[in-house]
């Protein structure tokens, strides 16, 4: 029987949940958003596959990344994709990012008593063209933020974002003097997830990063450590 992540139980009862590891993050700027996730899927101390996507583009202006259990991520993404199409057929236009955010929250709460083991981040451009990031817990608690990280590497990434995006605990620079540019954010996201890959064993292999702005979504993929 596989051991669970970090847990040691004398008499282990069967659980429907497993954690496939991986990290996700997103950062929002004034007129853009950057969202990224790694692609490693682990089970215990083994790697199940080096490429299993955690990212889904929902509309040209909105995407989601999820960490947690791959089966639930896959299903949630499937449901979300279908719901986005239904919305578009019904209303004749794609869902706004705010609508997607609310929908994800409702889909998660719908499973309140047998939750999706997913830790999601939705990022995109809102109706005013401003970048936005929404973070969730497993049952759909919704909060709009400027940046967020989830998954096995989140405790490594979140403090970096606190320091570099929100400028917390910085003595060398003032908030008024700082402008979060797209290039800065992309580099930061790349560095943050790469650093997580250095120390977190469940983060690595490849990263799917995408930049969302008024012109649409630009997707990229790069390599991380394979160890």
């Amino acid at each position, binding site marked *: 029987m596989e051991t669970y992540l970090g847990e040691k139980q004398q008499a282990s009862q069967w659980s429907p949940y497993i954690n496939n590891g991986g990290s996700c993050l997103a950062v929002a700027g004034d007129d853009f958003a950057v969202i990224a996730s790694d692609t490693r899927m682990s089970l215990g101390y083994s790697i199940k596959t080096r490429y299993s996507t955690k990212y889904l583009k929902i509309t040209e202006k909105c995407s989601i990344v999820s960490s947690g259990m791959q089966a639930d991520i896959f299903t949630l993404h*499937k449901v979300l994709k*279908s719901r986005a199409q*239904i919305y578009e057929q019904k209303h004749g236009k794609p869902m706004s990012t705010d609508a997607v955010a609310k929908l994800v929250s409702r889909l998660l709460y719908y499973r309140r008593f047998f939750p999706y083991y997913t830790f999601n981040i939705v990022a995109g451009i809102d109706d005013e063209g401003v970048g936005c990031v929404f973070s969730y817990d497993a049952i759909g608690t919704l909060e709009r933020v400027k940046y967020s990280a989830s998954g096995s590497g989140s405790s490594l990434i979140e403090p970096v974002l606190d320091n570099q995006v929100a400028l917390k605990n910085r003595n060398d620079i003032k908030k008024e003097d700082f402008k979060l540019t797209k290039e800065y954010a992309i580099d930061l996201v790349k560095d943050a997830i790469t650093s997580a890959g250095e120390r977190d064993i469940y983060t690595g292999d490849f990263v799917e990063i995408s930049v969302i702005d008024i012109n649409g979504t630009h997707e990229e993929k790069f390599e991380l450590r394979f160890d």
Partner: protein
Amino acid sequence: MFRTQYDSDISIYSPEGRLYQIEYAMQAVAQGSTALGLKSKTHAVVVTLMRSSDELSSHQRKIFKVDGHMGIAISGLTADARVLLKFMRNETLHHKFVYGSDLPTGEVVSSLAMKSQRNTQRWGRRPYGVGLLVIGYDGDKTHLYQTSPSGNCFSYYAQAIGSRSQSARTYLEKNFKEFPELGLEELVLHGVKALKESSGKETLTKLNVGIAVVGKEQKFEILKPNKVQSYLDQILQTEGEIEIENENENEKDEEAETLELKLD
């Protein structure tokens, strides 16, 4: 001959073995404005004439997207078409959700045919008063199907339905042999030319002509009015040029202008 005696209910046959109610339903299709479809090896196209009841109202939409690889053009009762459209959208989306692939056009059309037939044999129901031209691209092939209130569905190289569709059909019959090898642009031009045959006194403008395409590396797309206008312009241009081809080629521009006025 026996029409009035045997046409009061869908469940009554005439002595000749005809169900008049179904034929009347098909009449409803023939009353709608023209919709035509044609396909090549790589693309399938529908072209429609959108009527507007008066100058104040908008033009009636006749082309609808079913899924990324499939769409329909309708002729007849629009409300009935909406019901069938919802059904098709549901089927294709369900298939995509469960199997992760595009639902083959032929399968959706078969389900639609079954659904239409049910309404011809159930108490209290009436046949759907709409004919659809379904275009799709799946399995590396283009598809064009026609469905009718009777529940019959056929695959076509090219077809036209609705009022004055016979003129369009004649044009398509004359030219369909060359369709398979054509590129998208030429295919659409043929479609618009065919529509012109059935347009009668109505002038074709970007507001009352609807065009949609689907094919290899081309998701189902309803063309924007400006793109439609560019095709209409090409038709007007070529009409002028066909006359000149037999005459002096140097005076093309002047001739084209004067000939355009004469053609109408």
